[in-house]
């Protein structure tokens, strides 16, 4: 279909710039984008008849990574090497 209606996964690298320019960056647009992403994730991994550990484990892994990123400035002080 046309460029502005395609989801992110189907956009080629070369068209990424134009695709971002067609995005709706208002609060409602961002909220709608978050809503879409969440509902598509749920529909794919959680609302199935036989889901495995994958649905929740990916959310937990994402949470672990996010929290590591948020606490990085504090964890940096526990390094072993002084110079990198």
């Amino acid at each position, binding site marked *: 279909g046309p460029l502005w209606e395609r989801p992110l*996964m189907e956009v080629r690298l070369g068209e990424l710039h134009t695709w971002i320019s067609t995005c709706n960056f208002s609060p409602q647009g961002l909220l709608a984008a978050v809503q879409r992403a969440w509902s598509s994730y749920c529909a794919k991994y*959680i609302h199935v008849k036989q889901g495995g550990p994958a649905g929740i484990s*990916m959310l937990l892994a994402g949470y672990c990574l996010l929290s590591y990123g948020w606490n990085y400035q504090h964890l940096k002080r526990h390094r072993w090497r002084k110079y990198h």
Partner: protein
Amino acid sequence: PSAPAALRALPPPVAVGVLHTTRPLHTTQQSLAPVPPLPEKGGEVRHGLIPEEFFQFLYPKTGVTGPYMLGTGLLLYLLSKEIYVVNHETAAAACILTVIVYAIKKFGPEVAAFADKLNEEKVATAVAMKDEAIQTLQTAIEEEKKEQWRAEGRSYLFDAKRNNVAMLLETNYRERLLMVYSEVKKRLDYQVAMQTLKRQKEQDHMIQWVEKNVVQSITPQQQKESIAKCIVDLKALSKGAHAAV
């Protein structure tokens, strides 16, 4: 005029019985039912963490081992540059992850079977309700058809009822006829009885009067004379009888 705006905004009601076709009913496809069923399996995920689409994305360029090499290289880079710092939390995370993976591998299928059983029970109850509803409706349809068939025999019913009414009328008429006849007969019998009684009384009275007068008129003189005559007659008769014998 006093109704709220929401009520006024509704389309005008359709008169039952005389269907005005200006407001069409049920023309659009209902989008709510039936709900499409859930997909059987979720998206493919390798090692429980990385979606299969990532491996497929890298396959044309790097083959099968591409993502693994990428992962190893990334891990070594993070460790050597100490972007990922090894501290007490790392040991804790390693222990927890081991336990979790062991638990999932050991008890996963049982829990999955249990959850499936719960789901199946729910679905079975729902399906049973649906089947029961369908069955009741089917029986209702058959009953209705039977009632319609029965209603066809109403002409017989009305004929029987008409016959009944006619018979009642006839019976009543004949009863009244009989009553009239018996009443009239009673009256006439009374008159006849009165006349016969009167005649009989007159007769008796006359007979009595005649007898009384006759008895009164028999004087003792006549009595003696009649007795003597009778005796003479008897003697004559006895003589004649002796002679005959």
